[in-house]
């Protein structure tokens, strides 16, 4: 058989085999086997994930992967969620859309997180991609209902429009009405972030009634109860639903209408919303509770007794988000009722009050760790903790993969012993060998970082605040945590030494954030010079770091690896080693 024919047959065979390989990691490994596999793979890769939009340029992505159909991009660093990244820092999606508009006419999915998305970008998406299907804008900002109207009007085959937790400006356009009457393809619609003026009920009802494939519907806060019942009756096939405002007094006609509507929804598995919910209406959902796997009550100010009643109706629950009103007693009820629980998030109802207003302590978390054998993911805000509790949790639940504890007051010690939490978190990393995400809080010395460096070999993301004594702490983490991808630190006495000693490590990670630490601008410049494939951004709104005394510490530091070089859209308050003013974003 001629060589050429053999190799072209095997190309097709390989491509077919590669089509079964979906994960990015596996695809990357496949493309590294040999040149011909690299070539075949790059032509048939359809999905791209870019964890940091500045790590690579759109042109580079397009050059390597010419036939992409689905792209996911992330912009700002995670701490932007807590207002630590000034406005105007970056994360603009327009340059990406502009390039992809020309190169990927068949692009049908765009997923963005923490990016700045303008109406212009949305209009460009609407115009450029003929078969556009999925738009997810998570924690994005910069657009208005005008942009949404453009999407609604042009994307005839749109299946998914998800605006979770984005900030949308109200331009008073009835954008929902821009979906043509012939449009029937919605599968998932999440508009829970929109304000009251931005959704027309009649347009919504018409849309829901003509979309038979609608599976997930998350409405915004302002849809009243009677409308909720109507919508549910129009879409009894829903799997996920976010409820709306509950009216103040119980009206039995409204109640029975709502209860009836819910009882029709045999496929319903996930409920969220519950803003302003009045406990008297909760029994309206009891008919679906036994099948619920996910419940988000984290906006509901209902108290422990009502929460306990509700939770005891939900034995299939796998995921629960709730406020601290659930209290230890509620978590004990959860532990005995919900044996399938995998994820628990408890948020504080009054985070800025010095005193606790709900009886939620470490006991609740201990109870859940004991009672729920499948518990893997924890986010827990509380005001007191003990090492003993942490050790118990670690021993009970070595299968934990995500553990984020926030003891609200910084530097709080173990309330029983007055000790730091080194031993407690040490137990977590020692026992939970598959831990991939960890957030620390409370009083902590360098010791905890020694434990983390020693044991947390699978840890990918670590968040640290108000902890440690010296550079040794940071050094333990950077030198010990082999799988570390993202490290974010605030208000810790970590400085130049640990950073410079571990410079090479930073290129193996996606990013490092350090704010209110002890890193000097000199060290930043040095690091930048030594490591050309790192972008070292000093974010400082107080003025040029160069003009300050030599041992002056920078306000915020964001270091990330990049093959695209320094970015071209830096605002005036981002300082790098380059003096080139042409790189600055012109006002």
């Amino acid at each position, binding site marked *: 058989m001629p060589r050429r024919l053999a190799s072209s047959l095997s190309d097709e065979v390989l491509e077919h085999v590669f089509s079964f390989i979906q994960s990015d990691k596996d695809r990357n490994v496949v493309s590294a086997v040999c040149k011909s596999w690299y070539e075949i793979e790059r032509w048939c890769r359809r999905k791209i994930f870019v964890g940091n939009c500045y790590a690579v340029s759109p042109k580079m992505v397009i050059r390597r992967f010419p036939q992409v159909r689905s792209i996911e991009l992330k912009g700002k660093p995670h701490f932007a969620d807590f207002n630590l990244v000034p406005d105007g820092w970056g994360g603009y999606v327009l340059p990406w859309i502009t390039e992809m508009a020309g190169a990927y006419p068949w692009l049908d999915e765009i997923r963005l997180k923490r990016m700045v998305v303008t109406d212009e970008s949305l209009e460009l998406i609407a115009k450029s991609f003929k078969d556009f299907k999925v738009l997810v804008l998570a924690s994005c900002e910069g657009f208005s209902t005008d942009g949404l109207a453009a999407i609604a009007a042009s994307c005839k085959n749109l299946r998914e429009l998800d605006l979770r937790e984005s900030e949308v400006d109200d331009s008073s356009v009835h954008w929902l009405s821009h979906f043509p009457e012939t449009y029937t393809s919605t599968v998932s619609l999440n508009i829970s972030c929109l304000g009251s003026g931005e959704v027309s009920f009649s347009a919504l009802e018409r849309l829901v009634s003509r979309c038979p494939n609608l599976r997930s519907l998350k409405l915004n806060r302002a849809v009243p109860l009677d409308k909720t019942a109507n919508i549910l009756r129009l879409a009894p096939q829903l799997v996920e639903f976010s409820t709306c405002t509950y009216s103040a007094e119980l009206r039995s006609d409204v109640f029975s209408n709502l209860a009836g509507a819910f009882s029709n929804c045999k496929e319903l598995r996930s409920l969220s919303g519950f803003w302003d919910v009045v406990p008297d209406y909760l029994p309206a959902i009891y008919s679906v509770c036994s099948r619920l796997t996910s419940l988000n009550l984290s906006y509901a100010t209902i108290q422990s007794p009502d929460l306990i009643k509700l939770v005891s109706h939900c034995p299939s629950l796998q995921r629960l988000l709730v406020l601290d009103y659930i209290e230890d007693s509620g978590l004990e009820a959860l532990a005995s009722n919900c044996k399938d629980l995998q994820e628990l998030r408890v948020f504080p109802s009054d*985070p800025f009050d*010095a*005193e606790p*207003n709900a009886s939620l302590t470490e006991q609740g978390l201990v109870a859940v760790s004991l009672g729920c054998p499948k518990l893997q993911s924890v986010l827990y805000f509380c005001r007191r903790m003990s090492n003993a509790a942490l050790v118990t949790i670690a021993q009970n639940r070595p299968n934990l993969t995500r553990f984020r504890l926030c003891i609200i007051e*910084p530097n709080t010690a173990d309330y029983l012993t007055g000790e730091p939490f080194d031993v407690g978190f040490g137990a977590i990393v020692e026992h939970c060998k598959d831990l991939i995400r960890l957030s620390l809080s409370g009083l902590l010395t360098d010791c905890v970082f020694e434990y983390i460096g020693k044991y947390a070999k699978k840890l990918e993301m670590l968040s640290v605040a108000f902890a440690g004594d010296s550079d*040794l702490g940071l*050094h333990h983490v950077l030198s010990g945590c082999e799988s570390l991808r993202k490290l974010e630190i605030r208000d810790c006495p970590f400085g130049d030494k640990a950073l410079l000693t571990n410079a090479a490590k930073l290129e193996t990670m996606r990013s490092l954030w350090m704010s209110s630490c002890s890193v000097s601008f000199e060290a930043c410049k040095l690091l930048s010079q030594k490591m050309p494939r790192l972008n070292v951004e000093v974010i400082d709104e107080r003025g040029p770091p160069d003009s300050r005394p030599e041992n*002056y510490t920078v306000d915020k530091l964001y270091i990330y690896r990049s093959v695209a070089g320094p970015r071209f859209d830096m605002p005036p308050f981002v300082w790098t080693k380059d003096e080139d003013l042409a790189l600055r974003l012109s006002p």
Partner: protein
Amino acid sequence: MVFEKDLNLDATELRLGLPGSSEESIRISNKRALPDMNDDSGVAAAKKCDQETAPPTKAQVVGWPPIRSYRKNSLQTKKTEAETGGMYVKVSMDGAPYLRKIDLKVYKGYPELFKAMEDMFKFKVGKYSEREGYNGSEFVPTYEDKDGDWMLVGDVPWEMFINACKRLRIVRGSEARGLGCVV
């Protein structure tokens, strides 16, 4: 690679200074924060130093606790909605690790208020007599009035009470002796 605890960072460090010169490294001892950090952390540092004396008002540290703006805004609107039109006071009990807030306007009189407090904190208010205060209970309800004085709950007519009461505290009976009350 195994690192000893006494890591010889000096030998391997990269510095801008000439070899042989040593710079004053910033002293970090028992404090968790540096004095020359920006204001946000400076507040936190000041708080740490004052941990023996509780600060009167808590200044907010930027971005802490780590709650997303989306969620914060949701809580804020609820708070302002709830607090207009009600007479909210804090209620605490000695030994209990939490506080409650109640709206005094919701109750029609002392019996209802006591029932609510008993339910919230799982205790019993004793029988009240003008001469002896509360009898037959380990715990006694007290309130802080507009002048900052701590008084026994029940000593004045209800309407006067709800206008004067700034906060409630359920104290152990032994500590209630000698509290101001109308004789």
